[in-house]
């Protein structure tokens, strides 16, 4: 999880083709993950001592085999399962925890806010991965432990930006009018403020997905992830490292998979921000051109009826 609020991006808006690429890539990997047992040509852990360290292009083993003769393609496909599943689950849970904490902190303010924000400060003083490693070390291994560790280390990344936004929104007159109507604090938070922070949460979530997958790969690489018998991209990267000089595909191919998924989710995050963040300069430009187009159309239709007479 990224530990700063969404950074302001400079330059031009993303071309559509890049967004299409990013979405296609994620959908592609999602399909691989969901249908892994049917798509993968071999079971991920099927070993064959006859077929050790075959390079990509070998018949039946298109992406080659590893030092135990396991099919790299099948292992990448099965690795997508773990990566995306944990990435998405962690994203959803982190977002929920962080948003609730951010809403409470920003809305109630005062000492509640002070206490929560000091905790966030302490949390952020630790590098994200170091914190996750420490938590995994305490909790032990296994997918559920990884999820808990990543959620517990990632929530401030949502809590702080959401809290900042709530600080502004709670002084808005619609919040005041809801309070005057007698809406309860939690009603105001979840019915009035939450819908208005959702664009931010959406953007943060997309970026968070990439970070989670990367973190999971890093943990697996360090041997702290899921047990070694499960195919994970990070784990493949770690064991392939020993053969980098002789069998490049062992480390490179899972690395490319990680790269594609992470960059896709970051690109989608950028695109969502351009679209939904009202402060994004691109959105303003887009709205302006839309308004101009509308005005031109209106002027045209206003003139239209007079034309037959002319």
């Amino acid at each position, binding site marked *: 999880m990224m530990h700063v609020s969404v950074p302001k991006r400079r330059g031009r808006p993303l071309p559509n083709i890049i967004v299409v690429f990013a979405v296609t890539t994620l959908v592609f990997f999602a399909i691989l993950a969901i249908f892994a047992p049917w798509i993968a040509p071999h079971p991920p852990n099927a070993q064959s001592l006859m077929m050790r360290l075959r390079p990509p292009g070998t018949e039946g083993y298109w992406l080659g085999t590893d030092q135990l003769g396991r099919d790299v393609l099948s292992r990448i496909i099965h690795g997508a399962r773990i990566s995306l599943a944990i990435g998405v689950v962690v994203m959803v849970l982190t977002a929920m925890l962080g948003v609730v904490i951010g809403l409470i902190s920003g809305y109630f303010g005062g000492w509640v806010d002070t206490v929560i924000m000091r905790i966030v400060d302490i949390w952020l003083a630790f590098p994200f991965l170091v914190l996750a490693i420490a938590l995994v070390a305490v909790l032990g291994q296994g997918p559920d432990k990884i999820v808990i560790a990543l959620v517990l280390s990632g929530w401030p990344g949502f809590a702080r930006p959401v809290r900042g936004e709530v600080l502004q929104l709670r002084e*808005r*007159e*619609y919040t*005041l*009018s*809801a*309070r*005057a*109507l*007698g*809406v*309860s604090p939690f*009603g105001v938070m979840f019915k*009035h403020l939450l*819908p*208005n922070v959702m664009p931010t949460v959406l953007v943060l979530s997309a970026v968070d997905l990439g970070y989670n997958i990367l973190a999971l790969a890093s943990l697996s690489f360090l041997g702290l992830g899921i047990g070694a018998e499960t195919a994970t991209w990070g784990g493949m990267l770690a064991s392939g490292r020993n053969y980098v000089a002789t069998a490049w595909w062992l480390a490179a191919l899972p690395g490319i998979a990680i790269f594609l998924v992470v960059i896709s989710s970051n690109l989608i995050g950028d695109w969502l921000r351009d679209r939904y963040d009202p402060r994004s300069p691109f959105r303003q430009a887009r709205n302006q051109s839309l308004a101009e187009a509308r005005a031109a159309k209106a002027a045209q239709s206003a003139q239209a009826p007079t034309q037959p007479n002319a």
Partner: protein
Amino acid sequence: MSGPDGMMQEDGRQGRALEVRNLCKSFRVGSETFARSELVKAVDDVSFAIAAGTTMGLVGESGSGKSTVARMITRLITPDSGEILIDGVDVLQNRQAARSFARTVQIVFQDPTSSLNPRWKVGNLIAEGIRVHRLCPGNEVNGRVIALARRCGLDADSLDRYPHEFSGGQRQRIAIARALAVEPGIVVLDEPVSALDVSVQAQILALLQELQDAFGLTYLLIAHDLAVVERFCAHVAVMRHGQIVEAGDPHQIHSDPQHPYTRSLVEAHPVPDPRRRQRQTA
């Protein structure tokens, strides 16, 4: 609905008397950590009374504390000291009374663009108060909302749309309908027309007048424009630096201001009649 002290009310839609005594509120301004903060008196010993079903105007420049008064009466902020009496009951001291009066004071803000949640449909915005206070069975909420919207000059089909699809005047009608949905006795109008076009201002003021006549509402009208207040209020108070410097009949204050500040306020307002303008400068 039965009010506190066994007072009976047939429908809650009856103006209530509002009285404010020695209201004070200070804000701490400046940094918190490094003690250089200072107290600014936003509202300093303000007292006034509004009879049930009448309108009082509160005039002053921005920063004079009039909006702080509005927010204290609406209980959005708590006064440092003083009393707020509704029908003679102090709602700051008496918690039970405070609860039963919770929805009797409502507020309409200056800018309907920001006082309506942009992500809510108009129908839900108006219905919110009814739902929160369970003022009627769930299946009757819709009918009530439609009736209220009509009363405020909105079409029934506008309820399915979002606030940004409406003009400023229409949005203010939505905000008024939203406030009236909980059957208040007192409505604080915090510069309800100053964000609107002059032609629309007249329509909204006419609507407010009509609603007051129909429901006997008590209004506290906050404005920086003496002309609006003069036309609309039976009584006016002028605020400056958190204090009321002059109070009385609006026509009298307009033609013969006593306090130098009121005089400058009156003179600041352009007179549309050249002959009167000459008289004013003479």
